[in-house]
């Protein structure tokens, strides 16, 4: 009964976000897809036409397909992180809607789950649509938009956890720039979106594998391009997921509740 009640509360919060999304669909479509689409055009079609194909993890694939798959991970990272960090900060600090919802029959715990699950849902939707574009350009197999979901959703949840924790720990909205430039951008550049991680020096490869985007990209390439399965991606991803989601909730409780 308690679980059912909690799920009802989380669903109310999720539906609140969905309602806002539905009412501003045009805005969201442009802001969600403009960036990955530009990366696809510039790197996939532009740089891809120069490079041709490459070998990674024992498989040979066109550079465009390689980048296309990396853009899936990048989309999950950016969409999950930005929605939860900047969006979460606005909702917590300026709108104070976490506080408004948490004095109704919805608890703060449910509000935060609703926030995280919505952020993950939105990022997953973006990744599924990018995968569908990959199907249209014949870079991915027909089933790609469906099979990416089981990895995309937890990965998006993980990055949303990072974003919400950052929102909770930032005194001002400008402070979100620190982890953005010191963690998110380096992940974007060095965790296998644009080139195989094995091309990095050995020490940096270890570092790249310790960060959550590398296992996400590895699993995405297994699912969309048939790359060999790197089993250690799963425990790394699971560990980050548990850690970041727990940290985000603890940090937000600490920020809001005395």
């Amino acid at each position, binding site marked *: 009964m308690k679980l059912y009640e909690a799920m009802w*509360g989380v669903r109310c919060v999720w539906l609140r976000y969905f*309602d806002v999304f539905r009412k501003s669909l045009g805005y969201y479509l442009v802001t969600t897809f403009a960036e990955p689409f530009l990366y696809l055009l510039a790197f996939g079609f532009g740089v891809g036409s120069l490079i041709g194909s490459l070998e990674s993890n024992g498989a040979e694939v066109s550079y465009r397909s390689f980048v296309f798959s990396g853009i899936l991970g990048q989309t999950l990272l950016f969409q999950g992180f930005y929605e939860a960090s900047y969006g979460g900060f606005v909702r917590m600090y300026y*709108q104070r809607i976490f*506080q408004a919802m948490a*004095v*109704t029959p919805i*608890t703060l715990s449910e509000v935060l789950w609703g926030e995280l699950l919505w952020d993950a849902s939105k990022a997953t939707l973006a990744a599924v649509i990018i995968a569908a574009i990959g199907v249209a350009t014949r870079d991915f197999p027909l089933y790609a938009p469906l099979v990416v979901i089981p990895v995309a959703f937890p990965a998006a949840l993980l990055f949303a956890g990072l974003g919400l924790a950052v929102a909770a720990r930032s005194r001002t909205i400008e402070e979100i720039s620190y982890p953005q430039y010191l963690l998110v951008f380096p992940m974007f550049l060095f965790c296998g979106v644009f080139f195989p991680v094995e091309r990095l020096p050995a020490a940096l490869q270890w570092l790249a594998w310790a960060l959550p985007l590398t296992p996400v990209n590895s699993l995405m390439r297994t699912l969309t391009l048939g790359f060999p399965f790197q089993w250690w991606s799963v425990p790394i991803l699971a560990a980050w997921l548990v850690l970041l989601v727990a940290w985000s909730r603890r940090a937000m409780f600490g920020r*809001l*509740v*005395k």
Partner: protein
Amino acid sequence: MSQPPLRVVHLTKRYRTQDGFLEAVSDVSFEVRAGECFGLLGPNGAGKTTAIHCITGFYPPSSGAVFIEGVDVRAEPKRARQALGVCAQEDTLDTDFRVFDQLVRHATFFRVPGADAARRARSLLERFGIADKAGELVESLSGGMKRRLQVARALVAQPRVLVLDEPTTGLDPGMRRSLWEILVEERAKGAAILLCTHYMEEAERLCDRIALIDSGSIRDVGAPATLIEHHMGTGNVEEELRPGVVWRRAPNLEDVYLRLTGAKLHERNSA
């Protein structure tokens, strides 16, 4: 005998600050009956808002308990808050929604069916004089309209316990009086109202009983007239308007507060 809609029992709230621990609320007890408006009167920093955060279940109390219609807010927050309407001191309106949609969305958090929520939202917007703004974005409203919308939102689930933290801050005198009329109507319908304010006139006009709160502690509780008579007597008090000009007038709650705490209602701003 039935439970009072709101019962606060030995509520204490301590929290860590940069300088150590602060006891923002100290052993506060009171109850609010159905059809009663109970005031928490004190200056900014007296502990009113922290007390409200504990009463709504947003902050866990360090000790003590709060019961809404007999249900412990900490133990069963969802059930307890089903009867609760809250208007926070700060602006907590959801600016992602238009005025009408905001009320309907908020009602869904209380399981109010959609058609009922829409009917109530229309009625409340009419009652609060902002029906013509139903389709507007919240950001386009004036400060006074936003405040009225926030009180309207607190009423959308037809709460039996209404907690209002400085609801008339920022309203002009006319808007303030019209909001008072609405609160009087809600009280007449049987709602138990907890009103936190630092406006003496508001407390005197609306509240059946008042708790004078200072540094987190209740210094005295009673009907406004009783408090004034008990602490100030029935004679006039002298107030020096400017050097050499003394005004003799009837005592008020400000005088009572000054006598009990040594501070004026608009003076303290520390916690």
